[in-house]
């Protein structure tokens, strides 16, 4: 590997941006495709499929056998609300490889005792969220059910390209929330990105079941295209 490719790759990784190294297996020739160059690349479809799966692999192309080394930043989950569902969501998400952060200004909820070993920030979203650097490899869920906490957090998430945004609440609750967020200046397009009612429709009743429904929905957004294909 050329040192300049290695340096550029490490820069992309440090900035939490995806990149693929394409290595020709016959000649050893190599190139780095950064996330912003993928759409214009001759191997676009292959690269996109590998980025979605997060897996490196060998591929036959018209130009010969190439090895694709896929570098995708670790996924993160930001949870607004140190609530009962979050207590189940945090360990399930950690098991799926997510780096989990929980934000809740209510110190009685956001305690180490309730969330052993989890990163919990007992601050209002306005203060807690900006330093987190919410990005496209972040899934974002609002679970407090309290507009005072959830609304400003959702407005923050809508301004960033997180791959998943979900909010707890019935259709009716969500309808009222959409009206409030619209009044705060959020566009219809952006508001349509919020998954609500949150989670896959699996008939979840208990908090752990709701957590499973949420992680199922997040996984589908991570791994499937908009058309529902792998």
């Amino acid at each position, binding site marked *: *590997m*050329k*040192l300049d490719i*290695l*340096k550029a*790759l*490490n820069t992309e*990784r440090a900035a939490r941006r995806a990149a693929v190294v394409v*290595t020709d*297996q016959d000649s*050893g020739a*190599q190139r780095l495709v950064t996330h912003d160059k993928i759409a214009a690349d001759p191997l676009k479809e292959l690269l996109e499929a590998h980025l979605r799966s997060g*897996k*490196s*692999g*060998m591929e036959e192309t018209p130009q010969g056998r190439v*090895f694709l*080394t*896929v570098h995708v930043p*670790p996924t993160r989950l930001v949870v607004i609300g140190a609530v009962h569902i979050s207590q189940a969501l945090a360990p399930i998400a950690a098991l799926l*490889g997510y*780096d989990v952060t929980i934000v809740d200004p209510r110190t009685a909820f956001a305690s180490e005792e309730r969330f052993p070993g989890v990163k919990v920030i007992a601050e209002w979203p306005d203060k807690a969220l900006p330093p987190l650097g919410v990005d496209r490899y972040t899934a974002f869920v609002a679970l407090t059910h309290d507009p005072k906490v959830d609304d400003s957090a959702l407005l923050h998430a809508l301004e960033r390209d997180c791959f998943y945004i979900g909010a707890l609440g019935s259709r009716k609750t969500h309808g009222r929330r959409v009206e409030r967020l619209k009044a705060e200046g959020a566009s219809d397009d952006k508001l349509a990105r919020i998954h609500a009612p949150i989670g896959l429709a699996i008939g979840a009743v208990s908090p752990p079941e709701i957590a499973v429904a949420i992680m199922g929905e997040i996984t589908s957004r991570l791994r499937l295209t908009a058309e529902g294909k792998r």
Partner: protein
Amino acid sequence: MDSLATETDILKAAEDWKAAGRGVALATVVETWGSAPRPVGSNLVIDDQGNFLGSVSGGCVEGAVVTEALDVIESGKPKTLEFGVADETAWKVGLSCGGTIRVFVEKVD
């Protein structure tokens, strides 16, 4: 995720070792068959003194990869190595048969 965190360290180490003036090679698992211990994309970085960081097989074939890597650092020519993971080793970790891995070794220059 541990594996990714480790991987970051490995590629950063490759850059740092090179910047420090050492001869450096990077080994990558490019194909696996059967029950291979490390997934495709796993890295091992090796310097010209035989120091190494990372893993391509969980310890079974690292020695051989390091030896070949020294050769790659010397010649500058990439190599593809193939290993069958020894049955004995495979049994020890509870696998019914040994896997096979292919490792691409290249110089960082």
